[in-house]
Structures are given as C-alpha cells and as structure tokens.
C-alpha cells in the first residue's frame, strides 16, 4: 500500500511536469505571435509607403491635393489606409540638388518659374533682384570637380559665364571665381568647396545654369545653394503621407517627391561639333 507521503510526491512531480509543458507551449505561442506581429508591421510599412507614393502620383496626375480614403475625388485604398498628398509650398533659404554626374548641368531658377514665366510671351517677367549673394557649395568626397556657371537674363538676350575652378582641378587652364576650400557641412550635406555669386552678378538674370566639369567618369555630387533669404522654388514638392490602420498596428510613412522645374540638358546647351 502507498503511503500518503508517496502520493504527494507524485502529485508534485506531475504538477512540475505540467508547468514545464505549459511554459514551453506558451512561449512558443508568444514567439509565434511576435513574429507574426513583426511580419505584419513590415507589411504595413510597405503598404503605407506604397500608399504615400500612390497618393503623390495621384496628386501629380490630378493637379490637386488628394486624400486617401473612399469616396469621389479621393484615392480609394480601402478602409485600412488613410493619408493625403499635398503640394508643399514651403520655401527655404537653401536648395540641395539631386546627385549630378560628370557633364550634367543643373538649371537653377533665380525667380519663381510658375509665377514669373509668361507662357504667352515665353519669357520671364522679372530677373533676380533680391540683393543677396548666393553661395554655391559643390564637390562631395571623394570627387574633384569644377563648375561652369551660365547666367541668362529674363528674355534670353544676354548671357554671362563664370568658372569655379578649385585647385584640385588643375586640368583646366585658367582661373575664374574665387573658390574657398572646406569642408563645409550645410543642411546635412558636406562639400569640399564653396563659391559666392554676388547679387550684382546675379541681378537681372532668371536662370543660373551650373555645369559639372570633371575628368572622373564616376563622379556624382550634389550642389547646394544658400542665401540669406528664401530662394525661389526649384520645382514641385509633393508630400505624401499614409497611415496603415490594420488592427492595433498603425504605421505612418511620409515621402517627399521633388519634380524639378524644366531642366536644360547640357547635351542640348553646349555648342559641339
């Protein structure tokens, strides 16, 4: 016959085994849930990002602000997604170009293209008149490059040219503007060189075209323009934001899309034969 003491021990052992088994089961279930949640988060992030981009594209197509949701005039992405795309009309005292390659050129607007370019006369109505210098930063490591500037006045009847030729670009004969050596970190971007275009040089001109000159075939670099006052907009900036609303998971993505105002490619601007 078993004693009470022996039955108690068996019960204890069974309880311990049961506890262990339950722990294993519960932890496995928890990990599975977590993994599911992470996967779900990633999926929602992708959906939100795609939704934000879609909103931007819809904004560009319609030409008016877009709201993500059901109903007319909106971007219907289902009830689990909300957001918008709107034209960003903010202005800043700096502008950072996209990456430019060897022989690319950037058409920088010294006056607002939308309001100042007369589509009937096909001319600008005004030229630069802010009275402030513009500093141009260029050449990001490990590159070495020069910039050729072309200024065109509002009706295209005059042109002026300058060369910013840093010391590192000894392959170009001749000097031009005074180039300062950095490094310069401006608005999150670091550049090797800076040149100042004076208000007097810029006055009356509508376009400033900056052409990249370098012997490095793989060079890419941004150019940044800064001034004491806000610079004219250089393109359409559409901000798209989307928020995923699936269950308890809420993911928000925001994207800026910059469409530069018309760019004159150097291929079609440089006399060549």
């Amino acid at each position, binding site marked *: 016959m078993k004693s009470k003491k022996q039955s108690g021990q068996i019960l204890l052992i069974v309880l311990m085994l049961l506890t262990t088994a339950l722990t294993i089961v519960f932890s496995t279930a928890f990990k599975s849930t977590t993994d599911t949640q992470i996967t779900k988060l990633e999926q929602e992030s992708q959906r939100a990002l795609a939704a934000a981009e879609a909103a931007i594209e819809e904004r560009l197509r319609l030409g008016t602000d877009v709201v993500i949701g059901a109903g007319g005039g909106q971007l219907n992405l289902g009830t689990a997604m909300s957001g918008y795309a709107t034209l960003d009309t903010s202005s800043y005292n700096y502008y950072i170009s996209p990456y430019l390659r060897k022989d690319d050129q950037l058409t920088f607007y010294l006056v607002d293209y939308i309001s100042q370019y007369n589509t009937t006369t*096909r001319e600008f109505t005004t030229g630069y008149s802010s009275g402030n210098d513009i500093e141009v930063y260029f050449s990001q490591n490990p590159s070495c490059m020069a910039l050729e500037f072309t200024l065109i006045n509002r009706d295209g009847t005059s042109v002026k040219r300058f060369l910013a030729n840093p010391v590192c670009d000894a392959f170009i004969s001749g000097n031009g503007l005074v180039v300062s050596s950095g490094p310069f970190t401006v608005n999150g971007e670091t550049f090797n060189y800076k040149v100042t275009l004076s208000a007097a040089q810029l006055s009356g001109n509508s376009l400033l075209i900056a052409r990249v000159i370098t012997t490095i075939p793989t060079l890419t670099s941004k150019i940044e323009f800064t001034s004491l006052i806000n610079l004219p907009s250089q393109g359409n900036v559409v901000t798209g934001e989307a928020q995923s609303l699936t269950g308890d998971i809420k993911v928000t993505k925001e994207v800026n899309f910059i469409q*530069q105002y018309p760019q004159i490619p150097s291929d079609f601007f440089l006399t*060549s034969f």
Partner: protein
Amino acid sequence: MQKTRLIQFFTQHFKVFFVCTILYLGVFNNGVFARPCNSLCTLHECDPGLICSSGRCRNPSCTQDNSCSCAYTIQGTKVGMPGNQSIEPFISQTVTVVGVGSSSNNPYSFPTSFDKTVNVTIPAGSRVGYTRCYNNTACHNDPPISGSSADISAQNAAKTASKYVDLWWHFTPLTPNCEQLNWPSTVYIGDTVSLNTSYVDDAGPVTDVGLVIYNTSIGCYPQNPPAELNQSVTTTQGDRAFNWTPSAVGTYTAYCRAWNDGIAECRGDCVDAAPRYPCKGSDGNGLDAKKTISVTDPGPWFKVKDASFHKVGALNEKVVNNIAAYDADDDATKRFVTFGESGLTTVEGSYNSPADPNPVPANNNSPVWNVENYTMNQPYLGSYFEYVTSKKEFTTISSLVPQQNAINVYTGNPTINSDLPNAPYVLIVNGDVTIDMATFNAAESAVAIIADQITFSPNTTAANGIFIANTIIVDDTVAQTTGLKIKGNLITKTFTNSRTRSDNTKPTIFVVFQPKYYIRLLPTLNISLYDWRQVQ
C-alpha cells in the same frame, strides 16, 4: 845695259807669271783640276757655275739640291675665305709664274726652277693673301700673308727630294655679313610677316641693307626674275625687319643683302658675279643668310560667339593673322575659337598640337579657359527621340506643319526649303533632314530641330534655330563667297564641313549662341529631374 836687264827681268817674270796663270786657269779652274756637281770640294774646285758648299759642289741657287738643277714645282689652290672654300669667282682666277706661264686651273701646277715670283688676279670687291709651304701642305690654315704676289725661293723648294712649294691663294670678299633671325617656314597667304634680319660689319662695313624674295621655282640669278620683294635701306650695322605680304600660294626663297657701298655686296647665296658674293651667315656657309618660305592657304575655319564649346576630335585651327569679320555680329579683333561671353572650351583630342604657324587661342577669357583630351558625356544627343516618346507628351505629325509650343515627332527624310509655321516648336525627325534654302527661319523664331542627321545644302548660308543631330553636314562642292552662319546653336557628335570660301580671312562656319531660344523653348526642350526622399 840697264834697259836690257830691265827688259830681260820683266820678260822672265812675265813668262813665269804667264805660265802660272795658264796653270791656274787650266788646272784649278775648269781645267785639268775642275769638279762636277755634288763632288767633294774644298774651295774653288767646282765646275763653273757651281760653288763649293759644305764640301760639295753645288748650284749656288740651291745648295741643298744634289742635282744642281734647282728644279721644283710650284703648285697650289685658290680658295675663298672663310674656311678655304672652293668657290667662285676665286677658283678660276689666273695664277702667273713670271717667266714661266699662267693658268686658271684649280689646283694649278708649274714645273720650274730657280727663284720665281708668282702673281694672282683679284676679283673686284675682294682681297687676297697667300700661304706658302715648302715641301709640305700643312700651313694653309695659318693666317695668310696679305698680297697678290709671292716670291718663291729655289733654295727652300729644291732642298728635299720632293722639291715643291705649295702656294695657296686665299680670297676674302670685302663684304659685310647678314643672317636671318627666326624667319618663319610657313606663312599664310595675305598675312604680313616681319622678316627680322641681323646685319654686321665683316670684311667690309655695312653701308646699306636689304632683303630680296624670289619664287623658288623661278630662281634668282642669273635668271634675274622679278622679285616678290626687293627692299633696301641705307644704314649701318644692326637688326632690321622687312615686312612681306605674300599674295600667291607657292614656295619662295628669301635672301638677306648687305652692301659695302661701291666695293662689294653679299646676297644670301644668290649671286651672279663679283663684286657680289654669298653671305657668310653665322656658320660661314651662309645657310642662314637665306630661307625657303612656304606660302599656303589655311583653308576654312570656324568661329563661335557667346558659347561654351566642345570640339569633337582635335582642335588645330589654321587661321591667318589678319582676319576679317564674318558680318556685324563678328569682331575682327577677336582671333579666337570662341569669343564674346565665351565659356569653357573643351577638346576631345589635343589642342593646337602640333602648333600651326598661327595657333588660335581658345577664347578671350583672361586667363584662357580650355581643357584638352576631354571626353564629354552626351547621353541625350543620340537618344532624345526615345526619351521623348517614352517620357514626354508629344504630337505626331505626318506633314511638316508642327504644332505650336509642342514637341512634334515626324518620321521621314524631309527637305526643308521654306520656313515651317507655328513657331515656337520643337521638331524631332526620326530620319535625316536637309535644309535647302538661303536663310532658314529668317524671322529668328524659337525653333529646335533634332534629327539623326541634318544637312545644310550649298544653297544655305544662314540658319536660325537650335540644330541638334548625331551627324551634321555642311554640304558644298565649290568655293563660295560666303560661309554658313548659325544663329542659335549647333550640336553634333559628327561634323562634316565641305564648304570652302575664296576669302579665308573670314570664318567659313560662324555660330552665334542665342540663349533666347532656350528661354522660349523652356517648357518643351527640356528633361525632367526627379528626386524621392523618404522623411519618415
């Protein structure tokens, strides 16, 4: 009695005296006791005409000659100085050995004997001296003895077995000297070249200086052809420049001239007779007292205004110094590849290498902006059709009537012989375009034509607009009086210019960059740049 004795005394002594005299004359003087040439002797034993010299009977004129004949040879050469040159008119002067004969041979030779005098004739405008070596030829680099008459000593000439005297006559023209100072080898027709020359006193002083140029194929003296240039001025020694503007293509020879007035002249190496002589120059041979100059036509050239310019291939423009303006938009004082508001000049190959006679600077920036051996990225140049049709809004047209303010796409190989309507427009031709009219777009409306190939026919002298193509041809078959002017822009990777013009003081191709076309075509002739930035 005394008288008889006296007579007997004198008679006896006279007999003795007479006998002694006979004995002396007969025995001791060519008598029984006389000695022949070269025989041993003491004092008076030698044959008549010989003397006893150093124990031998010798001819007194050549006591070293054991043949007693005093025979030897007078030989020599006539040369011009400096450098003992065998040149006329000196080598044909007449040498006379007095009492023997004369000869104008060179070298000359006279067998003779005993002492002699030798004379030589002197050409006008020169002087002469001589070097004289007895029984050797090693003295002729010594300074000559001045004079046209030389005495020859048989005593010296005949004393060795070789028996000769080597007598050289050294003639020196009494001329000044001249040499060219960096005269060019090539001159372009119509260019004025300054021929800087050095004139210096030499054997004669400088009294007048000059320069003469002949067409090389015609020659100079003795043909005495008309000279392309024949200038002179009275002056003393120093540097002087003479200007020459050639009027015809060809090969010419220029000679410097220097006078010693009334006495002699040196004239390159272009001479006929004394008293005109070749100039010595700097090396004594006169090679730099003349120079051959080639006059060439530089051919067609181009000029670009207000532009940044990329040259496909090498850049080696041949341009006359004295250029003329193409028209009112040009500037004849600007002899550059680009001028006006010119930017950087990049060259795919080398720049002015090898340097032409008249290398052209890249531009009038100060300092000049240029880069050679530069590879340009032009991704849109050959692919804009594909870019437009895939990314931009465009209009397809089936006839050459473009839509205004639009990108028009036409497929075919059109010939444009009248202005197209509805400017401003961008016309993209999927094919080859020929522009065949005197002035395309005379109204200077904003137009851009982009094609695989654009050909400007011989009839086209002006075209206004932006012309972009993989290949651009400026066609022509004969030299024109005008070139081709592009007002706008000209952009291509392959450029063929067949056009020439009769007046190469003006450019054949003249491109004037017009930024106004880019302003007016801004909404259409452009590319789009995008940038995405995720901010959250």
